[in-house]
């Protein structure tokens, strides 16, 4: 539940709030999978540095915490066991240049951050591509 991600001090005075939030009922599984961030970015760009934190702050909004994507009128593709990740240059390019409606979220990240999140994607969610991409690989693809 939401309590665990907030510094306790701020919530000492907010007992009532917590009860109300619980009743506003987000799906239980969703909450369990959603790994909240300790702190948020302070400007236009992402301040998270690790691949795991960047995934949790940028990618999972659409591709979901389990990386499986989602479908409504359109679809966010699954990144799980994703053959498209085999060549590291592909996710680098999608992240820094965007693709169709996907915004170029790499514009809000450094080369190191893009490399970190790509390397995280390519070694998690059932993907096992161990040839890491580097910041230089990212730099070359920047628009």
């Amino acid at each position, binding site marked *: 539940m939401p309590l665990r991600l*907030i510094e306790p001090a701020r919530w000492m005075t907010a007992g009532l709030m917590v009860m109300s939030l619980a009743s*506003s009922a*987000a*799906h239980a599984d969703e909450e369990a999978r959603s790994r909240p961030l300790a702190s*948020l970015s302070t400007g*236009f760009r*992402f301040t998270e540095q690790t691949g795991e934190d960047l995934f949790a702050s940028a990618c999972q909004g659409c591709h979901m915490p389990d990386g499986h994507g989602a479908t409504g009128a*359109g679809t*966010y593709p699954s990144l799980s066991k994703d053959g498209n990740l085999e060549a590291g240059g592909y996710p680098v390019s999608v992240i820094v240049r965007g693709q169709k409606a996907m915004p170029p979220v790499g514009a809000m990240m450094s080369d190191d951050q893009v490399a970190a999140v790509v390397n995280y994607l390519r070694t998690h969610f059932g993907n096992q591509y161990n040839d890491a991409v580097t910041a230089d690989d990212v730099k070359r693809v920047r628009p």
Partner: protein
Amino acid sequence: MANESETVSRRDLLSLVGSVAGSAAMYQAMTSLGFASETNYKGPIKLAGDTKGASVLVLGAGLAGMTAALELRAAGYKVQVLEFNTRPGGRNWSLRGGDSFTELGGATQTCGFEDGLYLNPGPWRIPYHHRALLDYCKRLGVALEPFIQLNHNALLHASTAFGGRPQRIRDIKTDFQGHVSELLAKTTQQGRLDEAVSTEDKEILLQALRSWGALDKNYAYQANLISADYRGYAKDPGGGLGAAPVAGEPIGLSDILKSRLWRYLQNFALHQFQTTMFQPVGGMDMIGKAFGREVGDLIRYDAKVTRIQQNDDGVTVTYVNSKTRSAPQIAKADWCVCTIPLSILSQIPIDVGPRMKAAIDAVPYASAVKIGLQFKRRFWEEDEAIYGGISYTDLPIRQISYPSSGFNRSGRGVLLGAYLYEGANAYEFTSMAPADRIARAVEFGSRIHPQYGAEFENGMAVAWHRVPFTLGCAGSWSEKTRAEHYDNLCQIDGRIVLAGEHASYIPAWQEGAILSALDAITRLHERVVRN
């Protein structure tokens, strides 16, 4: 949904252009980025001429699609509409008590707002110069009321300035203007503007600065009843004994500059946010519902389009039931007006030429999050005399907007507790579970209004990248993509024409959707009549 994001944004770029290159350059830059464009509405559309019994299939029952349906039927076309949702309106949408909303990923929120209170997750204000939208509101009987964009008594907040204490907009505005006027007056008096200002104009300029900047007779800006007439008083004038007003001490220029609070003042100066702004009485979806009353009989709801084909004889659209995923069904017509957001259309197989297809694939969709919070009482009015308007902050919630209706009533109120648009925070909030978004909005908002802790009851959080019917807030054009793709997106391709806010120079505004639809059906009709 266009928004005054306070990060490194296009608007920061515009401020820079404005300050360095002057207003003409700024206007030019704004026009090319699609912000400053005036509406080109010329009154109700007239589609004269023989429609020859032609039929039109409209895809999407948002404002663009329903405008097209309404006008095409009136012109004599046989019209049918396919819509993904179970309601008309699309992004024109309001959430009220009892409504439930399931976002992508499966999280369901049930709205706990009291009767009469609502959140507009999408569009929420209408500029006075959005003449097409205003005209449809008039024609369809949608009652409007003022939307308060500027409230001098609302707050500006920088987490690292003034010890984190929010400042009144009237103080920052008056003091900033006063200090700048004083500086300019000094410079003028020292003769340092003599090359730029004639002797005659110099005297007038000094008078103007004194008036505009609330300067005293020595052209100084300081604590006195002149400046207090603008910024308000340390002790307000009253009646009877001891009633004399006391002027407050202006905030120093350096403090204002360093706080960066001046940057929020543009949110009240920009053409798109100037008074008078409006909102429909009772919620923005009153517009979608009014359109729905007109054209609802033409709409097939719960229809998810899966394929769009055309040949010399007509258009064939395949769709399934968006809830039951039924066996595919077919709709046919002579022509098609497609208002499906590009975020979705780019994923649907469609028979159009390579240039239109490239345009459909060229537009990223913006990230935006809105959070409505219900409180036990309208403490912003009762405790702080803030009646409507918007407080701005550099915290991730970006702004708090107070309701522009129900003023001065006892009891509960719902305010907009966060409106994030682009930047890392919008993605971070989208990535959270809804209850976590609400918890964060309450946590951050309580730094501006400590009453949050005792008064908060419940909330609704809508992250537009998780909205099943749009997969994003709105089309996000750049100067480069507009130059390369915009005309190709808007051209009629065979029997198909696109419409929607994405096919306009007023992106993310309802006016853009309507003007785009009117332009599209005008050109389509010309083609039908000519053939």
